[in-house]
């Protein structure tokens, strides 16, 4: 056997024998056999040293900040140009006195000025596999805490079931499993199951059904303490709740959308969030970045050159020009058609294929943490009313007040599932009333606790006009790779250029991809000895 025809598998075995599992893993990565799922332990960007290249970064959101952080450490001269009045993009934590720059509906956040009274109006939670976000949190010293995304003590509520009564999630889920397990038990026990099955397997399935649904020894579901006790449990024996009506349970759409929510890819418990607000990530980047950031600077023109990109922007009534060697552009793709540019037609068509997302949130200051009296601490109530969700804060337990997420909308009706921007059309006052009215169907006297609120319809926010860029399957196929890769020295970046739009991890992933591409070409140019990059 010689080195030339050694199989990859045999090679990895040899590597493993010599260097152990880590070596196999590293080597597999190098061979391209394993998908890279880890954090960028180090992007290992080549320092351009004296060549000092200038970089225009359009947009001070998570992608732009990451690119500035990494490139200035590799010797590039970066300048960040941001259209809005603030740094962070959609990473927005609202506190007392903050401005919500909604087109036509400018609001000022009226929360009390207390550290625990804040609202993450954009990203709010970080799952454990969003390793790039977590990498930068660790690197930049952003303290994280666990955030209860799921509470079995919160409610599910559906106007079409149980006369619209809120049902504790644990009760719904215990009973749903119980009844379904009973059906399984009966089917297997009476040989209604047509599958070829050994007696041993049959017995195991019956045991599984008993365990899964907490059935009695005869395979019947008569309630479970998984639903929570009706009373007792400490000084006297716990008393089970009676079971819910199976027919009503089937009418509820909770089992369709909500019941498995906390098991899905990005929402499986536990989730994390920065202590004190998501924008601590933004602040940490700003502390570690030297590159100038110009706010209120709106890009008017992007012109590609063979050896760079020319940017024209308006800052406080003065026009500025920036001839950059490279440009990283996180401007929402739907704005590009309104900016002078000389992009090739297919590149422009690709950018135009992205659809504006219409995510909206509302944060309500509650004068009392009434949910804690209902034994709810953190987590989410799911409802098929239009507000969709109520989030109870995981932090600030037992303080007097708290900020509750009072509605989370995705640009479609929760009732009909048809596209709808009704929330965007409302005035801020109407939105608070709307959230309060529907909340009343879940918590008695809910609207009476509301002191004030801020609504953030991302599709109406100045310089954003969208959140959660939409990619049709056709657009993905036709344009994703085109847009992910640079046009000349111009890179489109941001969560919009990822498979995780509206997530910070998408922005970090996009930035990482673009930086790796830049590094590759810069290394190649330098190796070619041109001296100029």
């Amino acid at each position, binding site marked *: 056997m010689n080195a030339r025809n050694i199989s990859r598998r045999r090679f990895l075995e040899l590597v493993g024998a010599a260097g152990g599992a880590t070596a196999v893993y590293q080597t597999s990565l190098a061979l391209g056999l394993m998908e890279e799922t880890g954090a960028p332990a180090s992007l290992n960007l080549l320092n351009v040293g004296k060549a000092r290249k200038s970089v225009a970064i359009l947009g001070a959101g998570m992608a732009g900040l990451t690119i500035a952080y990494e490139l200035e450490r590799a010797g590039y001269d970066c300048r960040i140009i941001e259209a809005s009045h603030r740094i962070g993009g959609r990473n927005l934590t609202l506190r007392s006195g903050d401005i919500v720059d909604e087109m036509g509906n400018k609001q000022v956040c009226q929360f009390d000025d207390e550290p625990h009274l804040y609202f993450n109006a954009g990203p709010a939670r970080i799952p454990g596999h969003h390793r790039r976000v977590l990498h930068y949190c660790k690197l930049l010293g952003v303290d994280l805490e666990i955030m209860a995304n799921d509470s079995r003590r919160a409610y599910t509520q559906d106007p079409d079931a149980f006369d619209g009564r809120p049902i504790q999630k644990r009760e719904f889920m215990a009973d749903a499993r119980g009844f379904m397990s009973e059906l399984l038990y009966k089917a297997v026990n009476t040989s209604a199951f047509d599958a070829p099955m050994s007696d041993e397997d049959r017995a195991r399935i019956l045991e599984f059904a008993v365990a899964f649904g907490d059935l009695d020894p005869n395979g019947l579901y008569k309630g479970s303490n998984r639903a929570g006790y009706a009373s007792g449990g400490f000084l006297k024996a716990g008393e089970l709740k009676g079971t819910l009506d199976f027919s009503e349970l089937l009418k509820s759409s909770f089992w369709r959308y909500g019941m498995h929510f906390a098991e899905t890819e990005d929402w499986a418990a536990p989730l994390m969030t920065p202590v004190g607000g998501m924008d601590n990530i933004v602040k940490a980047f700003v502390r570690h970045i030297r590159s100038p950031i110009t706010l209120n600077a709106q890009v*008017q023109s992007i012109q590609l050159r063979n050896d760079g990109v020319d940017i024209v922007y*308006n800052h406080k009534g003065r026009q500025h020009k920036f001839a950059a060697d490279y440009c990283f552009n996180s401007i929402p793709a739907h704005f590009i058609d309104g900016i002078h540019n000389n992009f090739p037609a297919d590149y422009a068509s690709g950018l135009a294929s992205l659809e504006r997302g219409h995510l909206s949130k509302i944060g309500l200051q509650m004068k009392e943490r009434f949910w804690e009296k209902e034994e709810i601490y953190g987590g989410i109530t799911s409802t098929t009313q239009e507000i969709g969700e109520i989030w109870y804060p995981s932090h600030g337990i037992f303080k007097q007040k708290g900020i509750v997420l009072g509605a989370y909308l995705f640009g479609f009706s929760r009732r009909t599932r048809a596209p709808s921007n009704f929330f965007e059309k409302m005035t801020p006052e109407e939105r608070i009333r709307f959230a309060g009215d529907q909340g009343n169907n879940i918590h008695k006297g809910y609207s009476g606790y509301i002191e004030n609120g801020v609504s953030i319809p991302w599709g109406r926010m100045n310089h954003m006009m969208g959140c959660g860029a939409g990619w049709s399957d056709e657009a993905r196929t036709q344009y994703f790779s085109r847009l992910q890769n640079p046009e000349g020295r111009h890179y489109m970046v941001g969560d919009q250029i990822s498979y995780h739009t509206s997530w910070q991890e998408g922005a970090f992933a996009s930035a990482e991809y673009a930086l790796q591409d830049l590094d590759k070409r810069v290394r190649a140019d330098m190796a070619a000895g041109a001296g100029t990059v």
Partner: protein
Amino acid sequence: MKHISLLVCLILPTAAFADEVVVIPPQKFVYCTVCHGADLKGNRNIEAPRLSGMESWYVARQLEAFSTGWRGTHETDLPGIEMRPMAGALSAAEIVEATRYVAAVSSPPPPSTIGGDAARGASLYQSCAACHGPRAEGDESLGGPGLTTQNDWYLVTQLKNYRNNVRGHVAEDTYGQQMRAAAQLLGDDTEILDVVAYISTLKQVQEN
């Protein structure tokens, strides 16, 4: 007067790269360019029409129409609904200032983006010419705006809106009502595309 001359200073065109001329919007109208684009050239992705090239009297009339609810109130007119609060925030004096800004900008002629049979559109256009002029250059005395500077996709959208009573549905909106009636003369979407295709050819004639 001092106020006006200051405004004129602010909106003088400034030379840019690559033969681009970009007008700096007055600070208070920067937000207009968020959707309508640099130099108000329009943005199809937001369905924001081109304003550069629009007559001042027509701009003012439309801002007032949005403000009073003649436009931007029909539930299916999503871009109109988005525009309405923006117009509602403007005072009468600010509307005048806005028309000055619009008058100061220019942008390259809009590209043709739709299909359509211009020859068939030519005969359909005859009934339009009465108000919009034989070359679609517009006629202030009759209230018909020029059409050649507008994005063709926007003309298509608006013709459909008129035909479907999404625009021009308010009784007091005399011009809108007239146009709504006129749009009924266009039988189907194909005829709308044809007549807009013809209007695009008039744009090319003007360029030549």
